[in-house]
């Protein structure tokens, strides 16, 4: 059951539904060998039809499908380009998609299906980190490389030597943001604020603390708040009295917007910028805080307005194909498919072991910037990170 992008999207959808039904039926009739007999031939074709077929597990239905669909769009766009340029190993490249629906058990079954039945030499995805924690160990155990394009949690690549990821973890983005702020605005002393009742904002704070120490930026005070707090005036009054050059904030959008509004209300000058983590890289912040968000600095692995030729070509091609703007997930997927196609070509055969070796040596220069894996299979290069600033109520490239 192949689903290359050359097939009409409606057919793809139909095929996906059939596949889902097949999976369901398999679960229901697991004890009946008859059913297995009946189903076996369908996915087994995958590797035989004169193409190299890899697998992908993404969220293609349910509330989080916007992520999975963006990723699929990114893969498919890159797949077109790869195949137009002659495919891999003299054959067209194809992707068999499995829908995880955001469910880690379904992601796990999808991995089993792709490895056991479709016999793919490599798996892309899954979409969420917790799905990777379920599907990753299976792929690793069966020695099939699995490459996450959107899994940023700590410990993903620690699953095993066959687990890769191409998405930059937050720990790589924040130091770039702070360094840029330091060189651009001469920031020497900052106040830090973070939400101390949330694992995400707390771990981003740990990264900030380490990065600030490394850059030699003095921390005048560290203030905390609760994720549901709405009143930040006491903390910011104290911060105002210490005259920092900037305020480094680890918060989710809600609290972050509240902090910016309170900062403005207390008359802290606009030149004292807020520098945020990924939690503040959200249009929601601008929506709530309005003009008070102006001057906010955040780092992002990718930005639609990046001016390099590769990125502009990608955005235009994406727009032409899907009549929509790509997001970060599509960009990461697009780069990853090109990287993987290159690795398969370099491996010389659709063999999982050889592909793994090739991935470790692969280097590419995509829309996210230069890319290579560390020996621990995480992204090695952070030079593609862009720092954005809010200007006139919009995220823009920091000039």
């Amino acid at each position, binding site marked *: 059951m192949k689903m290359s992008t050359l097939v009409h999207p409606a057919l793809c959808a139909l095929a996906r539904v059939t596949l889902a039904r097949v999976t369901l039926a398999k679960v229901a009739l697991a004890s009946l060998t008859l059913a297995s007999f009946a189903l076996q031939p369908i996915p087994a074709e995958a590797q035989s039809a004169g193409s190299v077929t890899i697998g992908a597990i993404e969220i293609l239905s349910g509330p989080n499908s916007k992520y999975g669909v963006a990723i699929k769009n990114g893969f498919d766009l890159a797949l077109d380009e790869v195949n137009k340029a002659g495919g891999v190993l003299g054959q067209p490249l194809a992707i068999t998609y499995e829908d995880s629906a955001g469910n880690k058990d379904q992601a796990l079954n999808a991995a089993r299906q792709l490895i056991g039945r479709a016999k793919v030499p490599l798996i892309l995805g899954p979409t969420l980190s917790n799905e990777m924690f379920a599907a990753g160990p299976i792929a690793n155990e069966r020695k099939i490389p699995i490459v996450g394009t959107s899994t940023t949690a700590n410990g993903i690549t620690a699953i095993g030597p066959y687990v890769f990821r191409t998405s930059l973890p937050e720990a790589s983005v924040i130091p770039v943001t702070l360094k840029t702020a330091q060189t651009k605005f001469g920031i020497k002393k900052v106040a830090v604020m973070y939400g101390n009742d949330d694992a995400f904002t707390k771990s981003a704070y740990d990264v900030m603390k380490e990065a600030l120490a490394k850059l030699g930026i003095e921390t005048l005070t560290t*203030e905390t*708040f609760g994720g549901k707090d*709405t009143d930040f005036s006491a903390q910011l*009054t*104290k911060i105002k*009295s210490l005259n920092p050059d900037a305020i480094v904030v680890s918060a989710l959008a809600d609290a972050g917007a509240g902090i910016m509004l309170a900062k403005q*209300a207390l008359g802290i000058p606009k030149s004292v910028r807020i520098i945020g983590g990924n939690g503040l890289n959200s249009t*929601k912040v601008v929506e709530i*805080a*309005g003009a008070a968000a102006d001057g906010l600095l955040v780092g992002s692995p990718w930005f639609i307005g990046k001016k390099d030729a590769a990125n502009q070509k990608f955005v235009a091609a994406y727009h032409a194909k899907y009549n929509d703007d790509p997001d970060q997930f599509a960009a990461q997927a697009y780069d990853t498919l090109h990287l993987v196609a290159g690795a398969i070509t370099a491996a010389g055969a659709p063999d999982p072991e050889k592909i793994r070796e090739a991935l470790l040596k692969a280097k590419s220069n995509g829309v996210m910037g230069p890319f290579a894996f560390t020996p621990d299979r995480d992204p090695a290069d952070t030079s593609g990170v862009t720092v954005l600033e809010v200007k006139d109520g919009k995220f823009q490239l920091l000039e």
Partner: protein
Amino acid sequence: MLAQQLANGVIAGSAYALFALGFSLMFGVLGVINLTYGFYFSAGAFLALYATKSLGLPIWIALPFGAIASGLIAVVLDFLLLTRLRRTKAPELASLMVTLGATLLLYSAMTAIFGTEIRRFPPAVFDSSSFELAGIRLSLSQILIVASVIFLVLLFIFLLRATRIGLAMRALAENGSAAQLMGVDTDAVMRLVSFLSGMAGGAAGILMGLNYNAIQPYMGEAMMLKGFAVIIFGGLGDMRGALVAGLLIGIFEALTAGYVSSVLKEAVAFLLLVLTLWIRPLGMFGQAAVKRA
């Protein structure tokens, strides 16, 4: 910085006081711990948001509209949830459990309808810019909070002390059956008390929403915890206590965050709660202004 921190404290404290005032009135007169009270805080904010956003009303109309509508909701909820329990003279725990269940239902329903994303009043409805007064940064919404508290406190004092209906309320708080025997229409008084406390809760929600721009269904739940600490510190059912305790907790929180550590800010109210229960279980003023149930 001290003046600014005191101002921060008074503003936050006024909102706590306003919220606790309604809660205290409800408990003092009706004798039930009505956990739906936090819901009126959220409901008031959402109703005023609806009035400004969808009906295009100015905030000067949306504020009383939201407050009065939350008062009416309080009357309806009190009637639906508690009338039967009062008639059968059910134990206090029964009303606590009923209102707890209702609270869960109401918050979940609100989340289902509005989602958990925070919202804010349209910036155009209210001038949010701040100005400097004697070295203190203030905004219109902050002055509005303090002014509304003063207005509602004066209104409550006037009602309770200078009107026949206020006398009836105090009689009901003192002894429900005796009041009834003396010819007090206790049902009508209860409805009025529900209305007034719902209104105070709703007004507090609107003012907080206006000042902090963070309106979401569960905003009342966090406030309810703080509200409990305030009324226990001030003395259950003691309205004067609620007022003073609300202000003091606001000021202590601001000073703690400003001079000690913001990690401890959230602990202040609950530390006072524990200390009160240990040392003065009847609250700051030692005795309740109205008899506790």
